[in-house]
């Protein structure tokens, strides 16, 4: 029995561009971002200007930067994989990461009240949990941020090799170098400005490819195909997918609630802007994984063979564009969209991680004070140092993405200590910190023993239990509330 007609898609799915075309696109995009970074960075004269864009970011730029930063290569590459393997629930599971951004809108109000002159998330942890708590936070966030940064660099190298035949090391180095240069020139001004344009390009690209899928898909036939040959993708009680919903949501909460990428944006936005910007960015981000996932769900009904699930998004995009007569442009569009999604995350991570190292390690741990002149020199060196570490870690092409996934229970364990620190008057701090460590350990064990789709849930659940207990068992005041 012949089930599908693959003939029109097999060739299209392997569409790629020449190395020359790849270098031209990367060169043009890189030049554009660097020029923008240089131009936008003219205002970054002081440390506050460089790190927090003068604490004067408005609603449109604020929403766009939050949304663009959250659209990583994981969103455009992993969301289709989750939809392909876990179906409708998998698609929704990825979208629940937007709830973290929406809830951070509440946090932003409180953060600005508690730390009107704050710079980093580390300020908060040191204030609420002392040096030991701050050390735990720093260890977790550096592991998480570096693994996120390195996984983006690796994805960039992989993408350019797969699409344009550019050798991995060259591609990875170029994407990292471009982001370093414009972050170096313009600080958060450059990051936020480029994020705005990158978010528009990403949205246009996803809507364009999604429209092509809709135009080519017969929805009735697609439903019949999936319910006949992939019935579990529509199953309401699909265990792995259902667990992924809670796990991803809590992973997202943990990522957003603790990481300096988001705290620095809360500090950078004008008074009253941050809550609206985070809520708006969450709402705008929510449909993106659904659109990316929908593209993947259409693969089998359209007769597109997926050889490597990690390449689901580009494979389907190339196939539908090829089938619509955009064969030559397919690789170019995919390269531009994915390059933007990676750059918008790499720049934010470079800036936020460097801020944390300057303020918390250089200023906090080493006790060094910086004036505005020496700040730019140190900031530049730290950005270069972070980039060099990321480059060295990306060089051997280790599967760092696994480290990012394993960090799920670690960041999940920070959810409740952040909530308690922001809203509660008193807490048994040693007990809450014990909860973070217990959540990390048990969450990592769950990752290996039960499955990735339970790790963040276990980490967050254990930490929640300890934190609630810490509110009632010998709590002591934080000393900051009236």
């Amino acid at each position: 029995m012949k089930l599908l007609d693959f003939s029109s898609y097999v060739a299209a799915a392997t569409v790629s561009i020449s190395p020359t075309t790849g270098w031209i696109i990367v060169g043009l995009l890189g030049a554009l971002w660097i020029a923008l970074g240089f131009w936008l960075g003219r205002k970054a004269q002081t440390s506050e200007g460089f790190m927090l864009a003068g604490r004067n970011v408005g609603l449109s730029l604020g929403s766009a930067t939050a949304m663009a930063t959250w659209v990583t290569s994981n969103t455009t590459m992993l969301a289709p994989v989750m939809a392909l393997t876990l179906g409708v629930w998998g698609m929704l599971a990825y979208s629940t990461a937007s709830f973290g951004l929406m809830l951070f809108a509440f946090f932003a109000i409180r953060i600005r009240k508690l730390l009107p002159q704050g710079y980093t998330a580390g300020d908060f942890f040191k204030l609420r949990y002392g040096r030991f708590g701050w050390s735990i936070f720093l260890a977790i966030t550096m592991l998480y941020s570096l693994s996120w940064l390195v996984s983006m660099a690796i994805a960039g190298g992989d993408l350019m090799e797969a699409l344009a035949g550019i050798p991995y090391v060259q591609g990875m180095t170029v994407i990292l170098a471009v982001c370093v240069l414009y972050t170096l020139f313009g600080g958060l001004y450059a990051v936020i400005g480029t994020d705005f344009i990158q978010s528009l390009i990403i949205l246009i690209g996803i809507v364009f490819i999604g429209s092509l899928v809709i135009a080519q898909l017969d929805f009735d036939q697609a439903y019949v195909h999936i319910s006949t040959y992939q019935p579990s993708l529509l199953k309401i009680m699909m265990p792995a997918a259902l667990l992924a919903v809670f796990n991803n949501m809590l992973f997202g909460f943990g990522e957003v609630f603790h990481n300096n990428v988001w705290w620095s944006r809360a500090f950078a936005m004008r008074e009253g802007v941050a809550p609206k910007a985070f809520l708006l960015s969450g709402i705008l981000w929510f449909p993106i994984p659904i659109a990316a996932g929908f593209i993947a769900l259409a693969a089998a009904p359209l007769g597109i063979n997926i050889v490597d699930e990690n390449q689901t998004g580009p494979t389907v995009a190339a196939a539908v564009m090829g089938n619509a007569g955009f064969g030559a442009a397919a690789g170019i569009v995919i390269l531009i969209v994915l390059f933007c999604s990676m750059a918008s995350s790499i720049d934010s991570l470079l800036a936020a991680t460097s801020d944390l190292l300057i303020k918390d390690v250089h200023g906090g741990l080493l006790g060094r004070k910086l004036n505005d002149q020496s700040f730019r020199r140190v900031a530049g060196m730290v950005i270069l140092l972070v980039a060099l570490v990321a480059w060295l870690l990306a060089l051997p092409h280790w599967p760092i993405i696994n480290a990012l996934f394993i960090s799920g229970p670690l960041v999940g364990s920070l959810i409740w200590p952040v909530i308690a620190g922001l809203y509660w008057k008193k807490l048994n701090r040693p007990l809450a910190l014990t909860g973070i460590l217990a959540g990390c350990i048990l969450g990592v064990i769950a990752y290996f023993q039960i499955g990735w789709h339970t790790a963040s849930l276990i980490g967050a659940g254990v930490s929640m239990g300890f934190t609630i207990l810490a509110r009632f068992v010998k709590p002591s005041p934080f000393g900051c509330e009236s």
Partner: protein
Amino acid sequence: MGAGDIEFVDAAGSPVREVASDNGTVKLSWTTSEDDVSVIVEQSSSADFSLAVERYRGKDTGSVLTGLPEGGHYFRIAAEGTADWSPPLLATVTFFDRDSLKLLLSLGGLVVLATIGTIIGGHVMTIGRPVSDTTTTGKSIP
């Protein structure tokens, strides 16, 4: 080309006859003795392939099949135009244990609701409350 020339292999390239899945996804890979061979992959719920369906036809060397229901699924492969089928591959899909699932889903629901509820509750309780914090003086936290 004979059946011995095309066979399912694992990630290391070794022949494989059985695979297990906990989410209905099976990644099939195969090797052919010659390049550019068009193959046919069939699936059946029985080892004798009495009710087989074609799942792939083309020159790729693998296929990711998703959404399979619980149970055993047999796959076989042959070069197009021949009837020299490979030995069958049995893919067994077993979803997560139901009791553990209910427990973890209950925990997930509880943690998520408690988290969202505590944030909203905290926001409501603190929105109008003044903060007497050393940080409001403008000094950065040491």
